[in-house]
């Protein structure tokens, strides 16, 4: 933000952490971490997934108890045991829209997690008051289920501000927002910091964002603080090196740590001239309504040609999950068609999409991607079981051999094929899902948020694999809310908004401002282009 560092020396330290240590079994998530927050600063906490930044924040908010270390507020030592106590100390956390209950209204959600009797009028008044004060407009009586991602985050922020915190923690706040909404968010934060003297900890793995929005930056890697810098004196490449521990070259890698989209696009491109060939996958006028009448897909059409990666960019909740589920045979379209190589595929018919050569890596890995209660070998063979049975009896040797082959090829870390999938780390589970998807020689590969929650190494790996798949003639549909990821990996980008595709551009023509407008649903932008 703007340099609002006080002229009269350093502002006072509000919160100080020393020697914070947290172990989870054999893993040290935080190792002797020191961290401080001053009044009136936005402090970026940068690090890749698994660096320990979330654990550090959880200890601050009382969701995890430290194994060692001291916390001081205003110089007084204190212990934080739960979020409610943290709130009473003036520490609040803005969660990533998963602390909201859809079925409840805004004011009820704001009231959740407080103590004392439930007072509708006072809560509503406070919600309205906070909304007006910080420009976070939202209807207190609206059910949360009807709100967009941006509005939901407003509710999260209001929920946090309701306790009048002096310290705000934001964990990856922009991952579900349009660029415009992100900007608004940082305006609100900047305002609070200036006017109210908040101290803000901004947890992020996006370099770009941290460079733009913060005053100081603490960089974590492998559970330790590796560097602490004043933002004004920092530069992107050294931060990236500090964060990953090695130079990052790959586009995918750059995307993984949130380099600016311009940088990523400026990187080496990949042009596919498949325009002439017929599309592998075609979705035409797909229309789908939820049982409660909400429009999920609204005449959506898109095509994927052989050898290309098509990115579906969009703010979460605009129809990405329905597409992924339709292509997984989990949902039946009300109208419209899905075609593979020109042949229509019945939607919602068990296994029909898979049989037609569409494989899906879903965003909700546990819910629809794999079976944690089954063995790694069984998970790897899920899609090809019928081929591994003789007259209905499973050939165990073959299942095992198949598993060993894929474990080797996809570098899955596992003690034995018989280990339960649920015992694997997130990255390894994702490799299993990917390995199974690739093992059936698909025609179309759909990847929905394939890298969420993975570390840089795994992200790079997945990126390479998607590229390799496309180079092998497969049509790849990458559905992601991460513009960096889309920009880094795709050949062509379509923008999804409220269940329809409202814009399309080649990667080489990527204009970030234009894209941002489209993400927010501004169709005039399309007209102007």
């Amino acid at each position, binding site marked *: 933000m703007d340099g609002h560092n006080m002229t009269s020396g350093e502002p006072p330290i509000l919160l100080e952490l020393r020697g914070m240590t947290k172990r989870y079994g054999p893993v040290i998530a935080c190792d002797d971490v020191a961290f401080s927050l001053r009044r009136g600063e936005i402090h970026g906490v940068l690090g890749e997934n698994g660096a320990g930044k979330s654990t550090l924040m959880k200890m601050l908010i009382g969701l995890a108890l430290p194994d060692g270390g001291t916390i001081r507020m205003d110089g007084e030592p204190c212990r934080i045991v739960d979020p409610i106590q943290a709130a009473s100390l003036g520490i609040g956390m803005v969660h990533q829209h998963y602390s909201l*209950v859809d079925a*409840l209204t805004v004011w009820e959600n704001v*009231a959740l997690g407080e103590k004392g009797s439930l007072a509708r009028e006072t809560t509503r008044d406070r919600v309205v008051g906070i909304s007006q004060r910080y420009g976070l407009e939202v209807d207190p009586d609206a059910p949360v289920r009807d709100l967009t991602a941006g509005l939901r985050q407003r509710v999260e922020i209001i929920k946090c501000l309701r306790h009048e915190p002096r310290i705000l923690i934001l964990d990856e706040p922009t991952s579900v927002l349009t660029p415009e909404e992100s900007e608004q968010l940082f305006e609100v934060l900047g305002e609070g910091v200036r006017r109210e003297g908040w101290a803000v900890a901004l947890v992020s793995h996006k370099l770009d964002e941290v460079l733009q929005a913060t005053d100081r930056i603490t960089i974590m890697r492998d559970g330790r603080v590796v560097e602490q810098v004043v933002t004004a004196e920092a530069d992107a490449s050294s931060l990236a090196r500090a964060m990953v521990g090695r130079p990052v070259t790959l586009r995918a890698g750059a995307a993984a740590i949130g380099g600016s989209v311009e940088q990523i696009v400026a990187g080496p491109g990949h042009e596919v001239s498949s325009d002439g060939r017929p599309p592998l996958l075609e979705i035409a006028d797909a229309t789908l309504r939820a049982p409660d009448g909400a429009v999920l897909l609204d005449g959506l059409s898109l095509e994927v040609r052989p050898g290309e990666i098509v990115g579906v960019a969009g703010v979460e909740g605009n129809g990405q999950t329905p597409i992924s589920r339709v292509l997984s045979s989990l949902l039946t379209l009300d109208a419209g068609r899905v075609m593979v190589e020109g042949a229509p595929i019945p939607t919602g018919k068990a296994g029909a999409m898979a049989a037609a050569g569409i494989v899906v890596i879903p965003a909700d890995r546990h819910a629809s991607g794999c079976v944690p209660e089954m063995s790694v070998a069984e998970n790897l063979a899920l899609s090809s079981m019928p081929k591994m049975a003789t007259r209905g009896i499973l050939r165990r040797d073959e299942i095992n051999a198949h598993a060993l082959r894929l474990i080797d090829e996809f570098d899955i870390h596992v003690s034995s094929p018989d280990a339960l999938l649920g015992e694997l780390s997130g990255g390894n589970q994702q490799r299993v899902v990917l390995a199974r998807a690739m093992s059936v020689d698909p025609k179309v590969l759909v990847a929905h948020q394939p890298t969420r929650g993975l570390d840089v190494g795994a992200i790079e790996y997945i990126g390479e694999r998607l590229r390799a798949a496309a180079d092998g003639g497969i049509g790849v549909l990458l559905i992601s809310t991460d513009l960096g990821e889309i920009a880094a990996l795709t050949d062509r980008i379509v923008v999804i908004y409220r269940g329809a595709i409202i814009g399309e551009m080649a990667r080489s023509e990527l204009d970030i401002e234009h894209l941002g407008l489209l993400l927010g649903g501004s169709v005039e932008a399309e007209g102007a282009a």
Partner: protein
Amino acid sequence: MGDFFSAVADIFSSPTIYGSAVRLGGFIAFAALGELVAEKAGTINISVEGSLLAGAFTGAIGYDLTRSVPLGLVAGIFGGLLVALIQANMSHRLTADQFVVGLTANVLVLGLAGFLNANLDPVVRRASVLEIPVLSDIPLIGPALFGQTWPTYLLYPLVPLTWWLLYKTRWGLEVRAVGENPQASDVSGIDVNKRRRQAIYYGGILAGLGGAFLVLGQIGSFDTAAVGGRGFIAIAAVYFGGWTLFGTVLGALVFGLADAFRLAVPVLGYHLNAQMLAALPYVLTLVVMYAITKQFRQPAALSRPFIRGLR
């Protein structure tokens, strides 16, 4: 067939059937109100059947020991609560499957009630009828609603009380939240499984009271077959009501009416097949559930256990 319909018309125009519908439906309503709260918090609590039976039995014992209907009702509450304690702690502390626990609890209560009844053989008398002046003079519904044994009237304040608890208190807000989205509730600082256990306790208390009401306010004797699956009908009443309070009570009364119809037929001198009549409430329940379950949005996390970090 014409005979049949004229018989039905005749039966439904008789005022006695409404009185008995309130009694029989009231019994289901006690349990259904508690079950509604348990389901709002995310549990399909099939041990409500066990809670009813336990409440009926301890209610009978309580009366036998003290010769006091109020104390019998209190004893019934404890009986129902005891079953709820087992259910809640097994399923929402130890994370055993809620249906397995519920089913086993039902079997256990049935065995215990039978065994203890054979050994203790409590003597029970029915509570006195209390006609509420003025109100009981209203035609048709007056005697049905206000000319009952006095424990029946305990139900009436429980309806607004349950509404107030669910919709006007922080506890109720949290109960609804954990039934809809336990993960989000957890992040907001709510002890999800604790709220779910408490909701089951509430269900147990009401079912226990309902069971005691059955024995002390309705039949005037104890029999292990007295509950006979009506706990499951209480669950169906919650579905019938689409997880709303008013609908649940209405559902209980509809099922009560079906039960009352069954009893009224022979009393009024009609001969319909006895087995068909006995099956009627259950058939009606199934038909209603078939017709209605998809129409309403159930609590999103209904019957899904919450274990932190596991979806």
